[in-house]
């Protein structure tokens, strides 16, 4: 698969009243054409900031370094006007809470029409027709009628579908979906995940899915990048990550979720301690303080993201061995 977007050594620092906060610490990963890449981690691990940094959506208090390449150009060096053209057309976003992303005083049709007018110079009847097509694509019944409705008239699931319809109006090559189903009920979530699958199949959009929900990852992701304290710490195909996690933090996350398919004796495993908030990038593993396998090396030397025992990249001095039962798999 060819690379659509390549992120290299992306670092984001915020200056706050309490000093500098290192939100993203040299994150590197690539999204291939048409793939669903899940960026996974707990709150504060830097996944949403990474997503916003791709197209320069962070506020002025953020200092960003590193590169984000797409189609032969580094988005990081582009002026705002060029980025604005790329956002929506090449890279589109869907966020967690559709109610705060939609304009409450404009009809659904107006809001989708705005995207079409701006990027595709469609207006009037043509824009309306295309907007209805888009609503149909995301599984909204009676699309023509919905065009004249306001966001408050729609349910949460419908609003999120409208957001996705707006996001894919210009057939973006990459859809960045930041916790798109987190605010939704599971039966509604299932429908929205189906919509994402449809988009990939029908318009070939790659999806960067940001989520903390391992069930959603298991359902839809091709590959997974796990983030911890601003660093990317493990990267693997979904099946491999769940079956052969190499980083102790990844293992910890998997063991912390109740899984009906895999009952654990003695309760859910807990990860002691909490995610550190860093101002500088330490020459150490940032998980060392919470890790049972940590030793002096982990506390004094920075691990790099290298192929581990399971064959996929892991940032750990003492990656977990591959479980015996699946070594042959």
């Amino acid at each position: 698969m060819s690379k659509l977007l390549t992120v290299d050594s992306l670092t984001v620092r915020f200056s706050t009243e309490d000093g500098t906060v290192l939100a993203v610490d040299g994150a590197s990963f690539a999204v291939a054409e048409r793939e669903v890449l899940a960026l996974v981690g707990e709150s504060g691990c830097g996944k949403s900031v990474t997503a916003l940094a791709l197209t320069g959506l962070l506020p002025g208090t953020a200092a960003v370094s590193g590169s984000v390449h797409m189609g032969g150009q580094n988005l990081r060096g582009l002026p705002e006007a060029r980025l604005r053209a790329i956002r929506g057309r090449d890279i589109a976003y869907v966020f967690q809470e559709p109610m705060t992303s939609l304009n409450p005083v404009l009809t659904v049709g107006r809001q989708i029409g705005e995207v079409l007018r701006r990027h595709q110079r469609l207006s009037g009847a043509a824009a309306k027709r295309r907007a209805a097509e888009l609503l149909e694509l995301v599984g909204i019944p009676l699309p023509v009628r919905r065009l004249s409705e306001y966001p408050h008239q729609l349910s949460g699931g419908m609003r999120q579908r409208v957001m996705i319809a707006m996001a894919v109006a210009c057939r973006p090559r990459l859809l960045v979906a930041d916790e798109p189903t987190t605010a939704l009920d599971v039966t509604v979530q299932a429908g929205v995940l189906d919509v994402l699958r449809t988009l990939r199949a029908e318009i070939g959009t790659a999806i960067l899915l940001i989520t903390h929900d391992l069930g959603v990852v298991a359902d839809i992701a091709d590959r997974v990048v796990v983030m911890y304290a601003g660093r990317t710490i493990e990267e693997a195909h979904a099946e491999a990550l769940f079956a052969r996690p190499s980083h102790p933090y990844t293992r910890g996350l998997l063991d912390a979720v109740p899984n009906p398919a895999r009952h654990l004796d003695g309760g859910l495993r807990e990860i002691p301690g909490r995610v550190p908030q860093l101002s500088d990038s330490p020459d150490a593993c940032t998980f060392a303080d919470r890790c049972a396998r940590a030793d002096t090396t982990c506390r004094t030397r920075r691990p790099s993201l290298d192929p581990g025992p399971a064959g996929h990249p892991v940032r750990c001095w003492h990656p977990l061995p591959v479980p015996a039962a699946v070594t042959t798999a």
Partner: protein
Amino acid sequence: MSAALEIVDLVKHFGPVRAVDGVSLTVGAGEVVGLVGESGSGKSTLGRCVTRLIPVTSGQVRITGREIGQLSRRALRPLRRNFNIVFQDPSSSLNPRMTVGAIVAEPLRLHGIGTTVERRARVTELLDQVGLRGEVARRYPHELSGGQRQRVSLARALSAAPALLVADEPTSALDVSVQASVLNLVGRLQQDMGFACLFITHDLAAVEYLAQRVAVMYLGVLVEVAERAELFGRPRHPYTQALLSAAPIPDPVAQRARRRIVLTGDVPSPVDPPSGCRFHPRCPVAVERCSVEVPALRRVGPSGATVACHLVADDGTPPVVTDRR
């Protein structure tokens, strides 16, 4: 010994909104019952009625045999030590101006339990039981993490040793790794202290982990109540089947091999719920009778499971639910 909680035909209307519309459910002494449902199902309203945070429209709520559904606030006050509730968001349910120690001691103080010295000792003990160091008693809620605050909420709720704890989405606002520790904690406390628990959540995995019995709520009514293993192993109501099939499990191989029942449409408005079975407009297998006749929650099969569906046979055989599309 009477049940910790008996709800009989409970109704709660907010003006035209029929949030809870005739629910009967029992939680035995020391039993953990999971109440699952999606947003708008009325599960949180039920929790608030049971703890009398809001008045009930009609029906009965008995806690350890005492009817509290219609009691005045004054008459209710001494009985409140028998039950308590923890909420989803501990940062909005803990008074920011009180120290943790004062927060945890408050139920003891209100119910006149112990002397000041005894209460202080009890607070230390409670904090220890929820896994917090005693020095936390001098801190304020904003100094604590979300997981620690939820531990404080639990310590407060359990300080007067209630017979019933209502837990309303206690882990939903927490990160995965913190969720695990709070779920473990609730389970451990429940075993140590023996309180009964109505565990309200949309998180099926959490319910499967903690509850002995599970009640499924849809649009103000219960559609199915069964033992945990039975409910998850053989869901009978088409809604339960759809709900379980929609919740993804964290295992890509298993998850991708699953068959999912996709429901069409959204949960209808509780202002004007559908006729007959409330689920019938979204039910993939509904027949004409479903739109006319309200299905009673009736016992099916040998185990004591109850289901409100015309299509579940008396021996408990569920309808085969396939996608309509």
